[in-house]
């Protein structure tokens, strides 16, 4: 997904302009605001991200959305580090939708990549202003002062002034043009195992998620959606639903044809969620299903396979692949497939919306408050800025909560009933009304010379693209969706990328790791198949593939990828794999995605049809790590999600509608299958990159390679063991 670039200077300049309820003094840009008399001196907001009270209590705002990835600890800890704040004095708050926080749409593993530098500057700016304030009090130079653990200290006489004492003076100090950033060796929190700021609340049940919002006069809604994309309501008999005690309204919601608008449905409003859910079942509804009622994923996947196993639309080309194929010593081809996936976060879609004549206020678990403003603004015909969005902690999201159809629906219901509405989707609606990961097929054909060098690589991919959300008429994935194929780090001189036809029949959306799921799978598995054909071990072969890449611009990336791969080979016992008991094997894979490098070594035991994952070694290079424990947790989680999609989860459509309904027929991984995961993090000074998604991609290929090593059986279709639904 595209994330707009943040200009550092402009970002900080604009970051403090807007005032909010808690803002007592705003220091950026100081002069303009001082002239307007906005600044008050009882406590101060040193900028949009930092509020410092006179008693020293410090509130740091996180503008990026938290869904469990730990960003609301990672980014504020950077601010605290540069500011020399004492983390024990810090409270983190989630910022409402507001441009003063910079880009808030949270996806693409971009938060750290985009916000690390601005957060450092926000902290360093505050520190400089606090030091300037102390220097003024002591009538000394700023150079004669330094900040440490919530104090500014006078170097000459060791006098100390607390941050709180300095707050209101600091707010009136000029904003430094170019704040000085700390050296890595001076970091207090960056690169440590700082615990999450909110876990104390989690373990006592006090952490408030979107689903937990309570307001006076709140009414509760449940919904049933049109089962097929493009369908509409044919008839509705609401008599029985309205007879249920506690039910107050039945609201029809038309399909709203903007990206992230409702697919259309009927909602029941009641005194509590349970009553609403019961009454929804009593609605008698007939739908016009429309043309997508033909959608059947079993047939569709076969069609995708057919579309990649024949010439398709050229996306990119280099060298002369036909010549390479003619001169080949070996030729090998394989087809890989994958199914739709539902994000299935533990917290189903939920929000509270209150639409009034002059206001609209939203409390939602969301990844993109900006899109809520946009969609509700479009629906209500109001300016996006008029939509107030309080960003709640999301109980998991994985890409699903980037799309605000559920918030739009709550807005429709609130608008029509005139009361604040909490709409919570049932699990069944969540699973059946998704923005699914693309069903997909890939065909790869490659040629090798007698030394095992890959001389030609033809890669065809067919999948309904996320771009169909914005342009439903697309019949195949556009070229930019295939860029990660063409620009893969493997070095193959003669290369062709083709896009196979794949019209969308349902809504397609970003799912944790997105296209890297199937690109990682096809590249990682096919490389192992090639190695086997060439009679080489997989590690040597993949390194050779990297070494054959002579593109200067990719050399640094190649070295990082190779290093991660070497690490997991060393740590997993790959080099001694000959000594493993019969039926066990280790498979390797490395994938570069979202600008991070992740390698995995998966150690399995295969007994008959049974695959047991014993150990997973995972090496990551994401540049400078912000939080060692958070990075580790993201990899543990990525293994679990990788395992679910590699082995068992798949969304099936028949007659246009999703067949799966709940966790009994969408079997996500449970604790019984948890392998021992060991995470190895590269100590790096490179610029930091994100980790929410990159860990997911290498798991499935490493597993396929491990199962092959253990049993000789090759799995090319995700999931390996689909449940018949």
């Amino acid at each position: 997904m595209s994330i707009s670039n943040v200009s550092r200077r402009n970002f900080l300049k604009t970051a403090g302009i807007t005032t909010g309820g808690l803002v007592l003094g705003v220091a950026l840009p100081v002069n303009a605001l001082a002239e307007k008399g906005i600044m008050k001196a009882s406590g101060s907001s040193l900028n949009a991200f930092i509020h410092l009270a006179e008693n020293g209590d410090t509130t740091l705002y996180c503008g990026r959305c938290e869904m469990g990835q730990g960003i609301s600890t990672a980014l504020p800890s950077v601010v605290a580090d540069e500011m020399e704040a004492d983390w024990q004095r810090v409270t983190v708050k989630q910022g409402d939708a507001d441009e003063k926080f910079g880009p808030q749409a949270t996806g693409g593993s971009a938060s750290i990549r985009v916000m690390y530098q601005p957060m450092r500057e926000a902290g360093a700016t505050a520190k400089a202003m606090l030091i300037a304030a102390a220097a003024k009090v002591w009538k000394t130079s700023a150079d004669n002062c330094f900040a440490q653990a919530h104090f500014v200290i006078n170097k000459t006489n060791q006098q100390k002034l607390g941050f709180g004492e300095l707050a209101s003076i600091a707010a009136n100090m000029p904003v430094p043009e170019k704040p000085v950033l700390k050296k890595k060796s001076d970091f207090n929190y960056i690169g440590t195992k700082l615990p999450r700021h909110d876990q104390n609340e989690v373990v006592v049940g006090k952490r408030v998620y979107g689903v937990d919002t309570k307001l006076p006069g709140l009414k509760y809604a449940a919904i049933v959606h049109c089962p097929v994309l493009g369908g509409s309501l044919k008839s509705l008999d609401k008599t029985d639903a309205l007879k249920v005690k506690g039910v107050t309204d039945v609201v029809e919601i038309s399909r709203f044809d903007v990206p992230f608008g409702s697919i259309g449905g009927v909602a029941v409003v009641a005194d509590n969620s349970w009553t609403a859910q019961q009454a929804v079942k009593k609605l008698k509804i007939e739908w016009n299903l429309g043309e997508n009622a033909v959608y059947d994923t079993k047939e569709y996947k076969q069609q995708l396979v057919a579309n990649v196993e024949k010439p398709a639309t050229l996306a990119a080309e280099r060298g002369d692949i036909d010549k390479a194929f003619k001169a080949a010593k070996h030729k090998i081809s394989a087809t890989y497939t994958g199914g739709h996936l539902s994000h299935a976060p533990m917290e189903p879609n939920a929000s509270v919306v209150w639409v009034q004549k002059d206001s609209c206020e939203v409390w939602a678990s969301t990844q993109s408050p900006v899109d809520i403003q946009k969609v509700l603004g479009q629906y209500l015909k109001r300016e996006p800025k008029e939509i107030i969005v309080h960003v709640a902690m999301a109980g998991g999201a994985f890409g699903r909560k980037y799309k605000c159809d559920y918030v739009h629906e709550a807005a429709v219901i609130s608008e029509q009933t005139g009361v604040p509405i909490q709409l919570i989707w049932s699990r069944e609606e969540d699973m059946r009304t998704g923005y699914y990961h693309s069903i997909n097929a890939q065909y790869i054909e490659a040629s090798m010379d007698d030394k095992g060098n890959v001389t030609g690589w033809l890669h065809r991919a067919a999948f309904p693209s996320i771009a169909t959300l914005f342009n439903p008429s697309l019949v195949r994935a556009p070229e930019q969706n295939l860029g990660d194929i063409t620009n893969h780090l493997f070095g193959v001189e003669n290369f062709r990328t083709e896009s196979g036809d794949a019209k969308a029949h349902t809504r397609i959306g970003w799912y944790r790791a997105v296209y890297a799921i199937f690109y990682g799978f096809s590249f990682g598995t096919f490389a192992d198949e090639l190695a086997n054909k060439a009679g080489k071990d997989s590690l040597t072969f993949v390194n050779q593939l990297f070494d054959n890449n002579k593109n200067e611009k990719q050399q640094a990336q190649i070295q990082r990828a190779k290093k991660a791969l070497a690490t997991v080979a060393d740590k997993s016992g790959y080099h001694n794999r000959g000594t493993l008991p019969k039926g066990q094997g280790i498979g390797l894979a490395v994938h570069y995605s979202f600008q991070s490098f992740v390698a995995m070594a998966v150690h399995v035991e295969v007994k008959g049809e049974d695959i047991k994952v014993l150990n997973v070694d995972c090496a990551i290079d994401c540049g400078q790590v912000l939080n060692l424990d958070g990075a580790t947790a993201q990899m543990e989680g990525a293994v679990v999600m990788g395992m679910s999609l590699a082995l068992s989860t798949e969304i099936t459509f028949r007659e246009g509608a999703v067949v799966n309904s709940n966790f009994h027929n969408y079997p996500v991984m449970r604790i019984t299958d948890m392998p021992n995961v060991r995470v190895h993090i590269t100590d790096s000074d490179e610029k930091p990159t994100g980790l929410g998604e990159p860990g997911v991609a290498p798991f499935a290929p490493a597993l396929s390679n491990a199962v092959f090593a253990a049993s000789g059986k090759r799995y090319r279709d995700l999931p390996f063991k689909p449940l018949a639904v």
Partner: protein
Amino acid sequence: MKQSMIINGKTHEIDVDGDMPLLWFLRDRLEFTGTKFGCGSGLCGACTVHVDGQAIRSCITPVNTLVDKTITTIEGLSENGDHPLQKAWLNNNVPQCGYCQAGQIMNAASLLAVNTAPSEQEIDTAMQGNICRCGTYQRIKKAITEAAHTMYKEV
């Protein structure tokens, strides 16, 4: 005579439809929101609470089956959030999104009430009904083992 149940030490009159699952009585009527809705079918464990000390799925347990019963939710597991499991959860930085963790902790507390030193396999068996989509299982296992040790080391 009005029917009631005891929740976290306090008596609460059952003033809702008797078929209403405990989960919604807790969340929407009493506003104890620590107990979470995940699946509505007893498949994920997010809604786990204790009835007379034993873990149950509150999303499929009607309130009329709980008359005069003693209910404990995550809010009432300990006075100050200092149950050994809660401490072990913090010590191991278990939560990611944290949404399922109340159910995980309540389920684990029920296990440790009857098993002072569960093996890895016993933990797996007891906890397999609790889904964590973020994938914190490795830390959950470790935290349960650690809490068992803390609770029973003097026994």
